[in-house]
């Protein structure tokens, strides 16, 4: 299954991260596990892809970060969605739905 991460389109990874975080606050490991969970194990995002994406999205203003305490009392970097990030979810969901519907109808034809 790990192979699939190479097939992740960049836009898809961004959308998955934004979705995984939702309205909460999460650290990197948490986001990775949440993605695996919500995609029913289809996507396992490795740090090599996740970290660059998180930093890029933060610089783009979609995510904000802060340092906090983790469940086991560790200092960890937490991410949450910004307003721009929330808007981005809308934009990317629409794009993705269009593609998905188009693919579905193409495959049914």
């Amino acid at each position: 299954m790990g192979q699939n991460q190479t097939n992740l389109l960049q836009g898809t990874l961004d959308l998955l991260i934004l979705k995984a975080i939702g309205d909460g606050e999460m650290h990197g490991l948490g986001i990775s596990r949440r993605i695996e969970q919500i995609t029913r194990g289809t996507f396992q995002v490795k740090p090599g892809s996740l970290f660059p994406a998180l930093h890029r999205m933060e610089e783009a203003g979609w995510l904000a970060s802060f340092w906090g305490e983790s469940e086991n009392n560790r200092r960890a970097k937490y991410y949450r969605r910004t307003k721009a990030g929330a808007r981005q979810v809308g934009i990317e969901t629409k794009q993705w739905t269009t593609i998905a519907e188009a693919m579905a109808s193409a495959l049914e034809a």
Partner: protein
Amino acid sequence: MRVLSWMKAGVRNLFHREQAETELDAEVRAWVDTVAEERIAAGMTPAEARRTALAEFGGTEQVKQRVRDTRAGTGVQTVWQDVRFALRMLRKSPGFTTVVVLTLALGIGANTAIFSLVNAVLLQSIPVRHPEELVVLRWSAHKWPESPGMASFGDCKMRGGVAEASACSLPYATFQEMADRRDEFADATAFAGPAELDVAGNGQATIAHGELVSGSYFETLGVPAAVGRTLAAADDHPGAAAVAVLDYGYWQSAFGGSPAVVGRTIRLNNVVFTIAGVADREFTRLTPGKPADLYMTLTQEKALGLRWGGDQDAGWWLTVVGRLGPGVKRTQAEAAVNPMFRNAVLHGAKPAWKAGDDPRLMLIPAQKGLMGFRGFLSEPLRLLMLAVGMVLLIACANVAGLMLARSTSREREMAVRLALGASRRRVIQQVLTESMLLSLAGAALGSLVAYGGASVLAAFTSANWYQPLEIDVRPDAHVLLFTIGVALVTGIGFGLAPALRGARTRAAAEFSRGTTGGVPLTTHAGRRRWPGLGSALVVAQVALSIVMLTGAGLLLRTLGKLRSVDAGFDTRNILLLWIDPTLAGYDKARVLDLYDNLQRRLAALPGVVSASYSSGALLDGDMWTQDVKVEGQTSKQTEELQMLRVGPRYFETMRMPVMRGRSLGAADVRGGPLTAVVNQAFVRKFLEGRDPIGLHFGSDDKKAPQWAIVGVARDAKYDSLTDEDAPTAYVPLAEGGAAFALRTAVAPSALIPAVRKTMRDLDENVPVMRVQTQSETIDRLLFNQRLLARLLGVFAGLGLGLACIGLYGLLSYEVTRRTREIGVRSALGAQRRNVLGLFLRRGLLMVVLGSALGLASAAMVTRLLASMLYGVRALDPVTFVVVPVFLAVIGLVACFLPASRAMRVDPAVALRYE
């Protein structure tokens, strides 16, 4: 918003890098620690938990590097980092850096120098307001017009083919019609010249170049006055006061830049002119290569004694330039003016063409249409651009070879970088940064070389032109962009191979070679690749050098042949002096007295063997021809005859033997029956060898002068050295200006001051137009060949030097790299000469391959030179044999040095080397 946040992040990354790094580190560590703790809680040993957590993470350093690579501002940051690192690396090997920068400075400098000249001659725009709006009028038809006289002053190219004729010269009437067309033209001007004018009333009489222009000239061009005023329409009316406007440069040199010149009077060809003002400093010329010292209105033509417009001003002698009206397209204006033009030339009082000749008027952008000396220089300049392009290629190949050798010794460094998570792109970027720095340093140094070189070239060109030229080779935006462009392309050119090679380094293979840094005895596959590429680079350098050497060789042989051409007279030790007393108001009788006098005085100067004069000098690019009929000639048509008016003792002075009959003496010049001396070609061509003495020739019109032949002189070259001997007649000079010729017993140039003084003592109102030796006039005819031969020679030498250094460097490197191998071979009984032969063979193979490739390319390229060659074919066997032999000898020396070092390798030392 997105951009703003990205910029904020960029600033943080650039200036608070440490913090960003610490945070990234903590974030990565938190992940691994958390996973490890979970595993320990699940029952794993701490060590095992940590190991698996790290392994799953996938290399902390690589992940961090990937994050860094995506960060905002990374580009700027890494470039800065690369630049600093590259500077450090280059400082560490000053020898390498110096050699590379010097090589590139020569390569780029040569290109910039030639481009500066190309820019000055071919590209610089006309220094007037909005030059792109100016158009020059050019007619075109199936044949020449039936015009009462066509004069051209070299502003435009004239074309007179069988099916198509075309030129810019137009009659005054056409200019007037154009100037009145306000729908198409905002303004228009007509001009002709320059004329050589006798300037008096400003110290000793001198010669200046005066352009005749319409009153609208300066207004049309948008050239303001620096001092006083420029010409106005009112100055161009018949009967208007004679005024002149000075060129800024001439004002500086002849009048010391004094503002008091305005209102002063000077005499031009004995006519009093008032100086109205000085033209703007920026305005140096309209047509490239045709500067003028003074500007007068067209109406002064007759007063100045010029007869350019012919009778009733019907001659076609004006170049017309118009400024298109606002928003008017060139094609649109062209369509609008053509009906009027056709009507005038087909149905005027004296039709110039029939309708079937299809006369048309074209509006050509002035920048393109006004050719001037561009027509003469564009071909040699294009060839020179090609040559310097080759020099740059050689320099690139040379530096690429050095970089490759260096990159091999830096393979471990590359391996370490790759292992530590540098992407291959980053490694390439790093190496390219180094090449760029080298290349830009080379360009900076090269620009200095270029400016000096271009100035020398400009001076050489100016000195060989008919009048001094201002060729502005100061670097401008074009030149700057060109140099930077060349530097960037060069940097990529020589840096790409080593960069790709660095990126291809296989880390594992590199480390497996051990830590001693020694080179393994058996060269594995990866190692063989660069000697292959290195050799190819050397072969390319040799080949390019051969091409240039061949070109230079062909031109040198051409020059040799041209210089040994028998001109038919003794061209050495002749000093020429041009004067025109008619400009100073001499009438016919006084002219002859003056010439008589001057001839006697010049002949009496110490060091002068004899003196004479003629209407023009031989081999000076000037010629007079006339259509004549010869008494007793076989054909019915008139024949073209070259003619020259000469004074007494001309044949004796020129050492042009008179084979039959007699030469011309004082009595022939002073009236009486018209006599002539013809050359052998005349007798051969018109009279088929019959005795010409006593026969007559002259214009078809029997009332026109008919000359009686009194002698036959040996054939001599007149127009050019390369033309076949054509029928020529020497007739007595009875009027007009003259070129005095002095046969000297000493170096002719040593007599220049004495000759000038003699003329001054005789009459200081008669200015000396030009003083030159006969060798100098011949040199000017050979300008293109001399320019190209010299420069190609220099560039070929440069290329050859670089190629030899490349060859030497490659072999030296090979010897060093294979020291152990040589040691083993020697220990196993290889003879020294076997070792020597090993390397000599390798070097010579490259030379032979390069020569073969070079000769094949040369065979194709030398065709471009064909128009400049004389007496040698483009595939001249001598050149094509001598050049490769010459190169082989030099190549052998370059190979021998490293090969003999290989021979001296001591096996015991070599094997202990590790």
